[in-house]
Every structure is written in C-alpha cells, then in structure tokens.
C-alpha cells in the first residue's frame, strides 16, 4: 500500500467514509505502523478542533440591513430577463467587437471570408429568431439565435462556476467560443458570436457547453427557413 493510499484511508475514516474492507485494512495498518497511528491521531485531533470552531451568531443588524436594502434591488429578476432589451443586445455586440477570445473553427465547408468573421451585426438591430434555456447542471442560462441583414448570430447569457467553452455546430460548420466566464460571481457571462456564412435554411444549431473539454450541457436552436 502506497503512502497516498494509507493517507486516503485515514482521511476516509475522518469523513466516516470507510467500507468494511477499508476499515479492516486501516486497523491492520494502525497495528503494524506506530508512525501512521500517531499521524492518524493528529489528524483526528485536528478534525475535532476544526469542527469545534463552530459558528458564531451574526451581528444583530445583519438581517435588518439586508431587508432595508432590498427596496433598492429589483424584485426577482424574472421580468428583467423577459425584457431582454435592445440595449443589452447592443452591449453584447460591443462585447463581441472587443473580445479577443472568440475562435472560429471551420470544420467543414468553405472558409469564411475575412469580412465575415467579426463585427457583422453592428449595422442594424438583430431580431431574435429562437431562444432556448440552457439546461441544468454546472452551466445554466439562455441561448438566443439572432438574425440581421448580414446573417445569423448566437447570443449567450450563461452562469457557471468555471470558464466554459461553447461549441456551435450547424450545417457542417463548427464555431467555438473559448473561456466564457462571468466577472460577476452571481451573474451571467454574456457573449454574442456571429456565424459567418450560415444562412437560415430550416436547420438545427447545436450548442455544446464544455468545462475542461468535458461536455456538461447541450442546447439546440432552430433556424427556420428564410421567408
């Protein structure tokens, strides 16, 4: 048994997480190795002391100060989300123009021309075409498909504990947004990505959300056929 394995047994015991087999292994280990026994006793003592630190009562004014300030906070933001306004969209487009982290990867199909790769939404106000909630799990939020005179774009407003990469796949093409993260821990990260060369032809647009290259959520947007 390696030292790491022995330490893992000791910690598992502290956490009440031992199987009967592991318990027997640990008992043998403790009998055979006085140093490990001493180490186990130290960690047990430490764990007990940490638990004993306990919780103090918060200051009496905490609750009142929170409730007093609630009046200046918008009531539950559901309405705010529903009124996803043009000003916010404009901010997202501005964010797109500034962002240097968006990487477009063409998997198949013709490579987009240079004038197609960025900033194609700034000339008029895009119209939402479809919108979908990004499910449960470590990534939540909303994805919206927009159309303007230059083509399609995907707007993302997501919350996640870690930076998220988003892969957008449609019509044999693949686009990727790297490292989408919110600077506001309780808020959402927002980004709009133009999809150069993609037209509305009744296809589905698949979104995969990755943390550390592991897909943690998926969503599908529908681009109806152009009128």
């Amino acid at each position, binding site marked *: 048994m390696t030292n790491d394995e022995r330490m893992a047994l000791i910690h598992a015991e502290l956490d009440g997480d031992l199987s009967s087999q592991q318990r027997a292994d640990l008992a043998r280990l403790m009998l055979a190795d006085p140093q490990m026994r001493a180490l186990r006793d130290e960690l047990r003592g430490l764990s007990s002391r940490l638990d004993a630190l306990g919780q103090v009562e918060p200051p009496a004014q905490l609750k009142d100060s929170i409730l007093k300030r609630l009046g200046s906070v918008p009531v539950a933001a*559901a309405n705010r989300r529903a009124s996803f306004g043009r000003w916010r969209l404009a901010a997202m487009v501005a964010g797109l123009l500034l962002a240097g982290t968006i990487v477009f990867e063409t998997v198949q199909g013709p490579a987009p021309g240079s004038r197609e790769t960025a900033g194609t939404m700034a000339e008029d106000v895009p119209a939402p075409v479809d919108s979908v909630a990004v499910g449960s799990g470590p990534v939540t939020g909303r994805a919206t498909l927009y159309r303007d005179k230059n083509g399609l774009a995907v707007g993302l407003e997501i919350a996640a504990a870690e930076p998220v990469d988003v892969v957008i796949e449609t019509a044999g093409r693949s686009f990727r947004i790297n490292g989408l993260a919110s600077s506001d821990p309780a808020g959402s990260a927002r980004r709009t990505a133009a999809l150069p060369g993609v037209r509305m032809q009744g296809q589905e647009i698949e979104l995969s959300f990755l943390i550390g290259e592991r897909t943690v959520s998926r969503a599908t947007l529908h681009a109806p056929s152009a009128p």
Partner: protein
Amino acid sequence: MNEEDDPALVLRCREGDRDAFERLVMRYQKPVFNVALRMLRNRQDALDVAQTTFLKAFEHLADYDPAFRFYSWLYRIAINESLNALALRKPRGELDANTADERPGPDRNAEGDETIQAIEDALMLLSPELRTVTVMRHITQLSYEDIAEALGLPEKTVKSRLHSARERLRDHLRRRDLT
C-alpha cells in the same frame, strides 16, 4: 413555526414576496456570515460579504436553478464574494499574530485559546481554494456532495483539496508544537 422548505420560499420570492426572502435570510444568515468570517477573519468584512451575498441572491433569483439546493447556490455566492474581498486586500506576507485581522472570537473553551488561535492562524495560511473546502466541510458541515455542487467541482477534487488542507494544517500545528 411553519418550516416552509427552500424551493417553496424561492418560488414565492420569485413572485415578489419579500416576506419569503426574509425567511431565507433568517434561515441562512448564520452559516453565510460564518463562511465569510472564516474565509476573511474580519467581522466587518464578513458582515459586508454576507449582506452582499443575500442582495445578489435576491437580485439574481431568476438565475437560480431549482434542480440544485438553494443553500449550495447561496454558499457559492458567499464564497465568491469572500474571494473577491480577499483579492481586494493588499498583498500580505504570511499571517501571524501581528498581521491577523480581528479574531472571530467564537467558542473559546477549555482546550485553550492558544490552540484555537493557532488553528485560526493556520486556516488563514491556506490558499483560498483549500480554505474554502475546509470551511465548508468543518464550519458549515456540508457533505462532499454539497460542497462539490456549491463549488461546481468534482467530488474527488473536493476530497483531494480537503485532504491537502488537513495535512497542511497539521504541519502548521506541529511547527507550533500544538498537535
């Protein structure tokens, strides 16, 4: 007392019921304050963080996913706010009795202030990542599953961080001959 559960209270909050939010504040103000206090070791900073945590939670309730436990979401905000507060502090060297902030002062007992203070000192010597899991496990008594959910980390990462944290804390106490 009617112990309405968290999802029902959150639903009422989302409909604009501020009394429901007051119930959530009363339910969680103590653990949220203590998370911040142990992360920051300063009562005023902890008070500010606790207040901000609840206000942000209220403002962003529409972003809360009911598939997760409300308190996990709330603690995540508290931890992030605490980390932000830490990041705003001036860089410091290793903390000792001279540089440590105001003591939380909880639960002094027969074991002696020296050992408790040594543990509090040692907690502040941990990296924020290790301190976070230690506080969530030993102060708020959350399970590994809850901590993993709150931090958006795999359980095995939480375990690994906690094990490292305990061993570093033990090393620190050893150096002070307090094991």
